[in-house]
């Protein structure tokens, strides 16, 4: 199969598939903005993750971008097209995969793709050929004539992904795409999403509650809450630069004397020391060089040592707090 050549490859330099500028959305009757001055850009081939607790404004942001919610202020441009001013045209440029299976239950898997292509202006012959190709590519050829409500969660998501890509959008919106999938299906879907970057050059905006998903899949991540972006960077940089913590756990032959604990507390970078029997947990923000110091402080009494890397989750919690959301 030949590579897809879309708008994104022939566009002028500085071409931005998705640009959100000062987006505000206040729902009628609400006292606060669901999205409150959000700006971000996603470039060609980039997978961009939007993380945030429930009610942070992720879904509203996507809903505006996919032309289903009117913005109160600000603009969203898809490949240069203003989604509020030219909604029908903007829908040409975007594909959506939601957590829920929204495949057309009255049609077979193949027919779902075929009619999608037809909605986007392909002739019957082109739509037939393109649907066949998509079934092959997404490993759905054997399910071609199956009714979509008989598909497993993983296959349904693959079919939705195939459908979302069928009209070669510039931007793909994935709204918690793996939330209800088993681990195998999740890994398979990740592979497909990664493949999009090289193969289709499509920009991806992904929302997820899975920190692992954001960490492993996304090139950049924005953590948002109360409608605003709190931090935006690569997952690695977020973990390095923010108040993420590394935990070093030590197991000793005997409970440590208080003097040893004080000595550990005095080491550079140590934030907190918790002692439980013969175990010590050392929480630190800057771990570089700490472990050798710990080892020499504890001396021969050390039985075991483990280090937990900072996670995106610890970054997320430190930014958004532990309070439960509705």
């Amino acid at each position, binding site marked *: 199969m030949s590579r897809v050549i879309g708008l994104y490859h022939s566009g002028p330099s500085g071409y931005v598939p998705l640009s959100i500028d000062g987006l505000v959305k206040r729902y009628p009757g609400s006292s606060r903005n669901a999205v409150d001055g959000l700006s971000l850009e996603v470039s060609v081939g980039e997978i961009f993750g939007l993380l945030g607790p429930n009610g942070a404004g992720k879904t509203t942001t996507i809903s505006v971008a996919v032309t289903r919610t009117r913005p109160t202020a600000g603009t969203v441009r898809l490949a240069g097209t203003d989604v509020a001013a030219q909604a029908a045209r903007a*829908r040409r440029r975007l594909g959506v995969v939601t957590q829920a299976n929204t495949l*057309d239950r009255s049609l077979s898997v193949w027919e779902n793709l075929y009619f999608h292509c037809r909605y986007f202006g392909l002739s019957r012959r082109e739509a037939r050929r*393109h649907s066949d190709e998509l079934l092959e590519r997404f490993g759905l050829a054997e399910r071609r004539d199956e009714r979509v409500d008989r598909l497993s969660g993983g296959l349904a998501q693959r079919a939705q992904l195939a459908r979302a890509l069928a009209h070669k959008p510039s931007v793909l919106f994935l709204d918690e795409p793996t939330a209800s999938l088993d681990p195998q299906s999740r890994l398979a879907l990740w592979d497909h999403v990664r493949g999009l970057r090289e193969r289709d050059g499509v920009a991806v905006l992904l929302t997820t509650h899975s920190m692992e998903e954001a960490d492993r899949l996304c090139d950049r991540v924005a953590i948002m809450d109360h409608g605003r972006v709190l931090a935006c960077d690569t997952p690695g940089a977020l973990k390095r630069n923010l108040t993420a913590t590394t935990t070093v756990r030590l197991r000793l032959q005997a409970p440590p004397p208080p003097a040893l604990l004080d000595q550990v507390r005095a080491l550079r970078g140590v934030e907190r020391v918790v002692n439980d029997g013969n175990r010590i947990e050392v929480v630190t923000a800057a771990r570089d060089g700490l472990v050798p110091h710990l080892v020499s402080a504890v001396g021969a009494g050390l039985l075991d040592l483990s280090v937990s890397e900072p996670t995106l989750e610890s970054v997320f919690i430190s930014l958004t707090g532990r309070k439960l959301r509705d």
Partner: protein
Amino acid sequence: MTELSNRSEPWRLTPAAFAALIARDLRVLLHMPASFLLRTVLNPLMFVFVFTYLYPHIGAGRFGEVAGQNLGTVVLPGLVASAIFFQGLNAVALPLSMEFGATREIEDRVMAPVAYGLTALAKVCFSALQSLLAAAIVFPLVYLVPAVPVRIQVSSWPTLVLAAVLASLLAGFLGLLLGTVVEVRKIALVFAVTIVPITFLGCVYYPWASLHSVRWLQILVLANPLVYVSEALRAALTPALPHMNPIASLSALTALTLVLGWAATKTFTHRVLT
């Protein structure tokens, strides 16, 4: 793979997408032609079988006669009218309510690159075609089954065509309105409480003029859109029976179609765009 980028600007895309939305509905209909036939044919067939075939055979031949015309002649326009009318509910309201509900399977059609109103209009247009098909199926049935010959005479082809087309669109828009406003868990109830009174008080089984002896009812049923469909068809098909002036019934149908069309397109857009 096919190059899509350059060929599909909206001006060219709109008719193609509109046709595709209709093609999708046609495919779904062709998946289950029997269900279309059964829901269209069963009710009028049972009615004419019992009241215009069986009754004369069991000695109740004059049942339902109006102005010297037998019941078969009286009900033919009415049964064609209700066949047209209820396609709108079956072909639009019921599926739409479900597709907007738990499965949200309307999504892909809503996201087609055309104005939301056009997606709704495609649904209504295909429903209107089904209405006309239903009329074409029901007509010979209610003409041929009665034991006593049914007397029809097309007094005005324009009235007949206009009445059938307006009624089909009106039915589709009514279906669109109900399908976008009524939640899926309540749709069965709404059907139950609307279909029966609309049919029985829709001048299907008697002409509107014959209600003059029950004046309050004669005025009350003017709120029922099916009345105008039955009466317009009666004017076109069985002019020997008393009927509303076709200009009045067709004007009412036009006005109702416009008002319902406007309202239903609004509720549809409201449903898909917040």
